[in-house]
């Protein structure tokens, strides 16, 4: 597996997310699904985004893509792609950036293709939308090449989505995502939708395509083991916040944030893969998070300061950042843990 070279934080990131907030409006108040997320994605890198179900991974992805649907709304923050803040662009400008620079491999691949359009038309329309009309035959060859690249047979070209298996649909989505050679792809992995074998094959396809084309990628998933094999760095989310970011090895060897520790503990070995424990879930009401640290209700190391002040991401090691008061500068009672 070729871990990309450019992980140096000195480089300007291709994608830079700051303080992204996406809330869902409900009758009982806003659900703070994404509440101040910071992320950097560097050229050619694969960044894993993990966390238990409902922690806001997909919402963050949609926030980055500017595709939050009501009742959700982007409350604030910035999403800089190649130096331009998507939140400040007009709708038409965002439309032109979509897919040419920033593509999506969606979570629900089972249901992500238009049932009334042939596979070829659904790849074709995105090419034509961004590059204008072109010769039929050239388009056809190009689409066939995309299909071949993701390991699909030519006959898929003329098929409708319901004639494909789950894994094939997922590959069509991958082929579609690379059609315009974007710099960044967000892959929202659908652990629940695919069986483990198919999922592994699909993951390999993504990995190969990324290796061939060298785009940067955010991979969202539940499966820590699979992540460990696929990405360069991992960002751990909990209740709408990124609580730790670290290179894969560092995260598995020395997770800093208590939640990250819990997560790594639940992965028996790097080889054996299993989904996150989701039985515990987020314990507080996402509409009304407690003041201070969002993890305080489940944290075994909770301190007084955790109940009043929200911890910020701080550097805790080479390339490793955690948002936890345990790692505060010479502190009153916190001090170093471990």
């Amino acid at each position, binding site marked *: 597996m070729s871990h990309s070279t450019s992980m140096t934080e000195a480089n300007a990131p291709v994608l830079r997310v700051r303080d992204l907030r996406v809330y869902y409006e409900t009758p009982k108040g806003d659900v703070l699904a994404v509440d101040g997320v910071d992320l950097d994605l560097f050229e050619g890198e694969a960044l894993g985004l993990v966390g238990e179900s409902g922690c806001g991974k997909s919402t963050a992805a949609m926030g980055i893509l500017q*595709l939050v*649907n009501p009742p959700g709304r982007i409350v604030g923050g910035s999403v800089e792609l190649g130096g331009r803040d998507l939140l400040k662009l007009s709708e038409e400008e965002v*439309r032109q950036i979509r897919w040419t620079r920033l593509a*999506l491999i969606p*979570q629900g691949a089972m249901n*992500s293709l*238009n049932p009334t359009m042939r596979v070829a038309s659904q790849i074709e329309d995105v090419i034509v*939308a961004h590059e204008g009309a072109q010769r039929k035959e050239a388009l056809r060859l190009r689409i066939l090449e995309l299909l071949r690249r993701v390991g699909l047979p030519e006959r898929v070209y003329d098929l409708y989505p319901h004639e494909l298996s789950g894994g094939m649909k997922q590959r069509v989505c991958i082929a579609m995502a690379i059609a315009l050679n974007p710099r960044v792809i967000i892959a929202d992995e659908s652990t629940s939708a695919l069986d483990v074998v198919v999922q592994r094959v699909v993951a390999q396809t993504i990995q190969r395509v990324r290796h061939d084309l060298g785009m940067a990628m955010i991979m969202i998933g539940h499966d820590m083991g699979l992540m460990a094999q696929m990405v360069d760095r991992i960002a751990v989310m909990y209740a709408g916040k990124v609580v730790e970011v670290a290179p894969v090895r560092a995260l598995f060897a020395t997770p800093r944030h208590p939640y990250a520790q819990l997560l790594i503990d639940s992965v028996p070995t790097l080889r054996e893969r299993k989904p996150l424990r989701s039985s515990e879930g987020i314990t507080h009401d996402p509409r009304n998070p407690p003041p201070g640290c969002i993890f305080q209700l489940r944290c075994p190391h909770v301190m007084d300061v955790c109940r009043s002040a929200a911890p910020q991401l701080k550097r805790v090691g080479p390339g490793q950042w955690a948002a936890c008061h345990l790692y505060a500068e010479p502190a009153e009672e916190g001090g170093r843990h471990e």
Partner: protein
Amino acid sequence: MGRYSIGFIAQRLGIFLLTIWIAASVIWLIPRLAPGDPISAMIMRMSSSGGRVENADKIIAGWKERFGLNDPLPVQYVRYMGNLLRFDFGYSLAHFPTPVADIIGLALPWTLGLLLVAVTLAFFIGNFLGAIMVWGKTPGLIRAVIPMFMIFTSIPSILAAIFLIYVFAFLLEWFPLAGSYPLGMKVELSWRFISAVIWHATLPALSVVLVNFGYWTLGMRGMMITVEGEDYIQLARAKGLKPFYVLYRYLVRNAILPQITAFAITLGSLVSGQVLVEYIFGYQGMGNIIFAAITSQDFPVIQGASFMLIVITALAVLIMDLTYPLIDPRISYERN
């Protein structure tokens, strides 16, 4: 298209024929379930309303002979079915000896024309409004105004018809009060005649449209909201496709499918609604002849007219059934 199999077509055709056969049998059976027989029942009603009928017994016997009502029931049934196959519904009682088929033949084209125009308009207007109600790019004002038109949906078509006649024909005199074309005008393929027909058909068509479009609007609105939530719409947006393209190729294209099914299902009630409207407008269609036949106890006409309406409805459903796989690729009958 290669999506059809002989089995599928045979099956649909079978359902079509079965529908018609059951309908025909019911139409045949109902008068025979009434105490006595149709003829004596009719004469009895005539005598109770219009005083004594001289030689009632003889008349009844004569009629019975003529209509073969003395034969055993199975024989009557088989003969009746055989006649139906040739669209031979016998003779009108009220306008003896005019064949029922002639009466229907004069009325049917008018009903079909009006039905086709009104119901298609209602379907398209309704679905269009439903779609733009949900579409994010529709101006708020339009979205606010559409629901106001929906009040017509909650009133029966007869009331809408009476309301339209009162306002636009009686008060404003923009449209004629009744009829399909001016009395005495020559029926011909001239602009004068055609425009007269359109002019006369406007209010009847409008009352069908007004009462029905809201149904489609609401259904389409619901379907659009459902489809909006589908992952493939999210992906279409992520692809940076033009909003209008997403609207028609992704949203409407999928949302309309259940609407078309619903259209086939409700066709029967659309037809009966229109029959009422035709009657109110004195439109020379099936509605009028059915009502006239009911008031004059003209049983053969009632039978024939009901039968033809059922045949047409079933035929429309059959056509929609057969064309549906062309619209929804998931419905494929190759393996049937």
